């Protein structure tokens, strides 16, 4: 008996990779505004769901006879988490945390044609996260402070090439801090688990790509 599912899978992959309708249409530049949600990790008391907006600039192309396209990208994203009230159980007190993060990253994006106009995007890059942190509590006057952190990011998403010049995508990115961190002042004051020493961010964003 023929292992039909395996055969079908083996056929589907190269077909998908060579699907002409899903291949890029010979453009080399990309301007891609994006908006979505940012989820902050490593801070146990802060729910930390933020709104983000930003844009990606990319330049790239493909090798002849090899369907995937490769882009070098540069991205700027800003995530706002707003005022968030937290309860400090150790002191039975309430405070308000305000955080914002700007990401400046760059790296490599691989676009793999799947079928029809659908394409898989994979990203890997690095750069910096510029955090802005504020905290207030009755009687407590903590000066807001900024931090600069080296980060790596990994991403995957689906992209629909609607026209030669336009695409629509859904992208998930995970950004992690690569440098050694001992903690974060606000996280430590609040008694958050791990004191904010292992921070990261997930990004889920809708993208609108202009190709030229």
């Amino acid at each position, binding site marked *: 008996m023929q292992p039909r599912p395996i055969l079908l899978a083996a056929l589907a992959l190269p077909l998908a990779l060579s699907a002409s309708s899903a291949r890029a249409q010979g453009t080399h530049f990309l301007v891609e505004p994006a908006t979505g949600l940012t989820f902050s990790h490593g801070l146990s008391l802060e729910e930390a769901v933020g709104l983000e907006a930003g844009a990606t600039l990319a330049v790239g192309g493909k090798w002849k006879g090899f369907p995937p396209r490769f882009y070098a990208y540069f991205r700027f994203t800003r995530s706002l988490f707003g005022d968030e009230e937290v309860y400090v159980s150790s*002191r039975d007190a309430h405070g308000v945390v305000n955080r914002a993060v700007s990401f400046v990253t760059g790296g490599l994006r691989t676009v793999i044609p799947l079928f029809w106009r659908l394409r898989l995007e994979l990203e890997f890059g690095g750069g910096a996260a510029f955090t802005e942190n504020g905290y207030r509590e*009755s009687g407590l006057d903590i000066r807001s402070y900024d931090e600069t952190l080296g980060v790596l990011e990994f991403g995957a998403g689906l992209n629909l090439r609607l026209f030669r010049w336009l695409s629509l995508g859904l992208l998930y990115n995970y950004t992690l801090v690569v*440098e050694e961190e001992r903690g974060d*002042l606000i996280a*430590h004051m609040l008694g958050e688990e791990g*004191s904010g020493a292992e921070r990261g961010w997930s990004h889920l964003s809708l993208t609108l790509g202009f190709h030229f």
Partner: protein
Amino acid sequence: MPRHRTRQPRLSPVGALLAALGALLASPARASFDSPGQASFEFLADDAATYPGWEDLPPDEAFLPGWAEAYFSSDASIFGEGGAFVWMGFSLEGPGGPRSGMLLLDLDLERAPFDGLTPMPAHTLRASYLEKRGDQVLFEGVASLGEVWIVDVLFHEDDQGGVEGDFAFVFEGKGGAYPGSRAFVRGHFYTEPSPAQLRSKYGISPVEPGSDVDTYVDVGCAGAVYWDDEPDPGGGCDCEGDTSDDGSAGSDSCEGDSGSSSSVDSSSCDGGDTGSGSSSCSGCEGDAHAGVAVARRARGGPLRAVQRWLPELALLAGLAWLRRRARR
């Protein structure tokens, strides 16, 4: 004063590449301290009396021992990279039940004496004290008396520094709104890891008690550690693979390293320099060769073969599938 160097284990080539990428964009606005820590002290809460001078404080028996968790942050300091904002939080018992106390210091460490004996000048420190129960403020104090002595400090280009010091404060109610005073004596704070632990980690000799020495640590050049009493120890040596050693450094050494000296001058350090002696900067050629070899293997590996033949394989598979479909 000669500049000393010690060595730490090298980063892998990939690690160095990633670190360089991160450092490329993330190098500005770095601070010296961003670290948890601890503090111990003896504490007196008096809701009636104030103490205009140290000699007016009651005898030692009136004080209770206390312990606080602490956090040290240069980012939050008004004095910037060379400063440290210190938050100390602790619990205490008082009339009406438990309270929480917070002692907040902001220290200009770049302008502080470091002998552990001379107190910091008044203009180089800020201090306040807050006592709360839940969200209710019970005492908000401003310092009427205060001394901070820095015992040891290790500045670091990348938030990994450490500081240790002693302190004593008397706080009076802010604006006369809170009667009485709070006093801290025989206080001691330190980061975790402490400066002594960091000195051991970096292979830097411990500071002599009473000596006025601060140390600036710069980790660069593929993991090599430079330290000096001037705030730019790495500035003269940007070569990759630099691994110059001092006599007290540990046994870590990069492959192919041939430079070693007990008193190393860092005035020049060009890439690839392999000299030894008082101006050495060996280039870790063994590691460089290993990196090249890895890259060559990757280029000739199975992934490259797959990349090369994937379009043809895909075409053949597609034709086979279409033919099979046509037969049906």
